[in-house]
């Protein structure tokens, strides 16, 4: 009898240990729905860029038969504003679903682990962001989409040490996509839509299926 109790207690101890080890070293409340939401906004952004922003640009171009510095300036500005909008929408929706999941799990959203995850995600992203702004400054726009994909992929690979490790594979895919895009520079928007739209949605659905469905 006594021995049986001891064994059950040991089992409980081991479960506690595992839970604490995981919870204290990795941020496990990242929701798959965050990925889906970010992907939807990414696709919407790409569609707006293609069918709204570029539409006037193409029209003026075929009318006049050549580019003018002024159009290009306006186009760049519109695209930057659009990109910022998409980023904000994706960020806040991702934040919302993760906030909801961490509440359900009783974890704190702003803890030592989430801070570490955020920092490790932010370093490559900030470097990438400044790098790309620098490229635009020098009028080098061909590699904007590939650089976005590569830096984002590196950020994910780096962050995977501090959250569910599956995100590493999303990172690999983004990097590969970016490198392919590097060789096919004319299709930046297309690759961008795949990387930030389709891949996010696919990843989000897989994660949701794997970790959240049963709850």
């Amino acid at each position, binding site marked *: 009898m006594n021995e049986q109790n001891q064994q059950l207690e040991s*089992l409980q*101890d*081991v479960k*506690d*240990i595992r839970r*604490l*080890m995981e919870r*204290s070293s990795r941020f496990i409340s990242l929701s798959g729905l965050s990925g889906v939401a970010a992907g939807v906004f990414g696709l919407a952004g790409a569609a707006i860029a293609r069918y709204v922003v570029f539409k006037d640009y193409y029209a003026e171009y075929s009318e006049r038969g050549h580019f003018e510095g002024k159009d290009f300036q306006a186009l760049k500005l519109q695209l930057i504003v659009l990109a910022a909008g998409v980023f904000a929408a994706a960020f806040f929706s991702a934040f919302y679903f993760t906030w909801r999941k961490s509440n359900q799990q009783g974890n704190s959203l702003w*803890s*030592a682990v989430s801070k570490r995850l955020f920092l490790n995600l932010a370093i490559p992203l900030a470097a990438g962001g400044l790098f790309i702004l620098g490229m635009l400054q020098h009028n080098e726009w061909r590699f904007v989409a590939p650089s976005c994909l590569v830096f984002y992929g590196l950020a994910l690979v780096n962050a995977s040490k501090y959250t569910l490790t599956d995100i590493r594979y999303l990172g690999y895919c983004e990097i590969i996509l970016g490198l392919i895009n590097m060789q096919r520079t004319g299709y930046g928007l297309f690759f961008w839509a795949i990387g930030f739209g389709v891949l996010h949605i696919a990843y989000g659905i897989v994660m949701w299926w794997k970790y959240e469905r049963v709850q």
Partner: protein
Amino acid sequence: MKNPITGLNKIFDNRIRLGVMSILVVNDEISFNDLKQMLEVTDGNLATHLVSLEENGYIKVHKGFIGRKTNTTYSVTKNGEKAFTDHISALENMIKGIK
């Protein structure tokens, strides 16, 4: 028959001390407040157990400041890590007995 309880470490009988060790072995360094938050215990309770772990030489205490507020962080010692792994192996052996 060998008594299965012999491998278990008396110090880790306590849930909070066991919890502290579980967290410290996977983190280089962790602050008092983070420990408190993860283990959901009161200041006094946690402090008592941290002192006993420190006295046993299982953990190291670093006292620092962030501005004017004290920021105490903890990390595990070599001894502590060994004691913890031994304890886990003993627990595993216990559980194998169930099956």
